[in-house]
């Protein structure tokens, strides 16, 4: 009951926020004049006047995680400066929340959003996305081939529905002062050597995928997984686990206090730990690891489509991507080839991308039935 009331309150707050995002212009009024002809003009100081006839500047409503790159100084403020517009953020705490937000009034109010790969397909199939006109995104050709044309983001007719922005992994991180042996495989979590000193991600998709990798199954093929084997594997792992974590803080606190010395973690957590002076290694086990790609999408019924395309171009373009990949203390992997070539080995190592992992299993698209089945397995493991 509390959840329903909370959801209603969140919805009302979100709609109030959106309603207060300034007057929205009609597409003709907000159309952004073409950028400078030079496609690498992202490094050029380009002032584009998009003021409407009434003198009001257009507003782009962006749905994103709080503190996730786009709202950095080199993000939205720089975009506003370049395109003489205003960027309003609507924050969400989970992609499920974003989905609910869009379904309950966000469409028509939110212009662009950042779901991960797995949800891009759900959003696309629910008719919540506009195809991206790649001719209006000059940086499109610079993006890494591996993350373009992913089936989740591609329509039946080959339309592009989302552009990759950053990629990451939930792989194996450990304290080299406490874990002195060579770490190459997920098996290390199952032995007695670090029993009671392990943290494991409390996310049913990642948990089941990691276990599937460990048991030699293909987690990207949810139709052919043996859930019983996975359940038994996770129950065996549970005996060694100290805590299940769900956020940065959940991991950082026990790790820094020494209660946890190894576990699966986000690459970003490992980066934060290392930057704070806490010893941390982050490796990609030989069996493979779980990966994700965060993608920018244009939301259906946006009334500033061209400005949304500019946002995608800016977010995936050279200037932002370089800053995003090198920002001190919170760097992220780039999807832009030109930026990757520019990075020094030290900068690549800072985001654990000196070597690109050979076996990365992206989160698969699950049907609602599969979601329920997977969650049931995870809940059974935790309740046991």
């Amino acid at each position, binding site marked *: 009951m509390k959840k329903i009331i909370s959801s209603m309150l969140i919805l009302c707050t979100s709609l109030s926020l959106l309603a207060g995002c300034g007057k929205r212009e009609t597409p003709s009024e907000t159309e952004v004049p073409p950028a400078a002809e030079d496609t690498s003009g992202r490094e050029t100081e380009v002032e584009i006047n998009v003021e409407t006839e009434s003198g009001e500047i257009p507003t782009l409503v962006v749905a994103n995680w709080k503190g996730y790159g786009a709202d950095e100084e080199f993000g939205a403020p720089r975009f506003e400066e370049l395109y003489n517009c205003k960027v309003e953020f609507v924050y969400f705490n989970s992609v499920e929340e974003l989905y609910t937000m869009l379904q309950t009034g966000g469409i028509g109010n939110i212009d662009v959003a950042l779901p991960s790969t797995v949800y891009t397909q759900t959003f696309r199939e629910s008719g919540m996305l506009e195809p991206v006109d790649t001719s209006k995104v000059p940086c499109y050709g610079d993006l890494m081939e591996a993350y373009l044309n992913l089936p989740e983001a591609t329509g039946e007719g080959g339309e592009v529905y989302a552009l990759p922005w950053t990629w990451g992994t939930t792989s194996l991180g450990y304290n080299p002062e406490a874990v002195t042996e060579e770490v190459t495989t997920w098996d290390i979590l199952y032995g007695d050597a670090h029993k009671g000193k392990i943290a494991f991600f409390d996310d049913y998709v990642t948990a089941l995928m990691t276990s599937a990798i460990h048991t030699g199954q293909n987690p990207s093929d949810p139709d052919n997984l043996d859930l019983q084997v996975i359940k038994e594997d996770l129950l065996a792992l549970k005996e060694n686990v100290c805590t299940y974590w769900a956020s940065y803080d959940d991991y950082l606190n*026990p790790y820094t206090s020494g209660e946890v010395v190894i576990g699966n973690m986000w690459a970003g957590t490992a980066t934060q730990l290392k930057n704070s002076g806490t010893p941390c290694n982050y490796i990609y086990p030989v069996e493979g690891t779980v990966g994700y790609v965060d993608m920018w999408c244009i939301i259906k019924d946006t009334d500033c489509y061209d400005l949304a395309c500019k946002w995608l171009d800016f977010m995936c373009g050279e200037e932002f991507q370089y800053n995003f990949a090198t920002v001190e203390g919170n760097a992220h992997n780039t999807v832009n080839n030109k930026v990757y070539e520019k990075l020094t080995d030290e900068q690549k190592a800072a985001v654990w991308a000196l070597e690109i992992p050979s076996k990365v299993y992206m989160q698969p698209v699950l049907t609602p039935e599969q979601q329920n089945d997977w969650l049931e397995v995870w809940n059974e493991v935790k309740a046991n």
Partner: protein
Amino acid sequence: MKTKTKKNTFKIGSLWAGPSALMLLCLSLIPLAMLLLFSFMDGNITNGVFPGWTMENFQKMFSSNVFSRLMIKSLGIGALVTVICILISYPMAWGMAKAARPHNRSMLMMLIILPFFTSQLLLIYAMMMILQSGGILMTLLGALGITTDGTSILYTPKAVVLVYEYLPYMVLCLYTSLESIGDNLVQASRVLGAGTFRTFINVVFPMSIPGLLSGILLVMVPVTGSFAESTLVGGPKGMMVGSLINSQYNTVLNMGYGASLSCVFLIILSIIMAVVRMLVNLAEKRIGGETE
């Protein structure tokens, strides 16, 4: 004429209850009705499409042993936390009501209420800092030679955190009951030859039962339904029924199943509340309302 005046007074008086009744209707009765309705729906209604009616949510709940196992576990933790709170609260409340000087009572009361001034999450995080390896408690125990370096009791005893959170409710309920017991009754008991223990059993305890049962209600119900504590400090075996319900709403957006779990959970807690209420009535009858 007199009857008419009475009737008018009643009508005007009942108008004052209007806003409260409206609030009760909007924030309690309608959501409860919605919850019951959603529990028979096949999935999620947030996308505006009616998903259809089904009984599968309840069938799934009763066919899987996850809910029953977690429900029993949660009730067990609720009972354990309540018992610990009672054992700690009785001497505290008695000390405040009878041993402390009257002008010190307000200060002691303030100390009890102080934790309410901050958010529940902050209280949990504060306890985590104390219980974790290298925290105040573990360092102290280590210095006394009771534990070794690196030992921690965090991620195991969520009951400790729950006791800390809900202890003030029990203390306040017991304090109210104990304060209303006249000193002359205790004195009379002693004059008639009863020792401390017998005075407590025959005089103090029966007269504090209403406050005690109110405290049980205020502690056991929220503890049984709690999920933040089990998630943050419960460790791998800390899952409670609240977490199961939460996962249906926030993880897979299965509103129908989440609502059916919530409904059964509410019914079970309502039965417990009804039993507690019955005991309160019995206790009040037994002591003849002297504590009022």
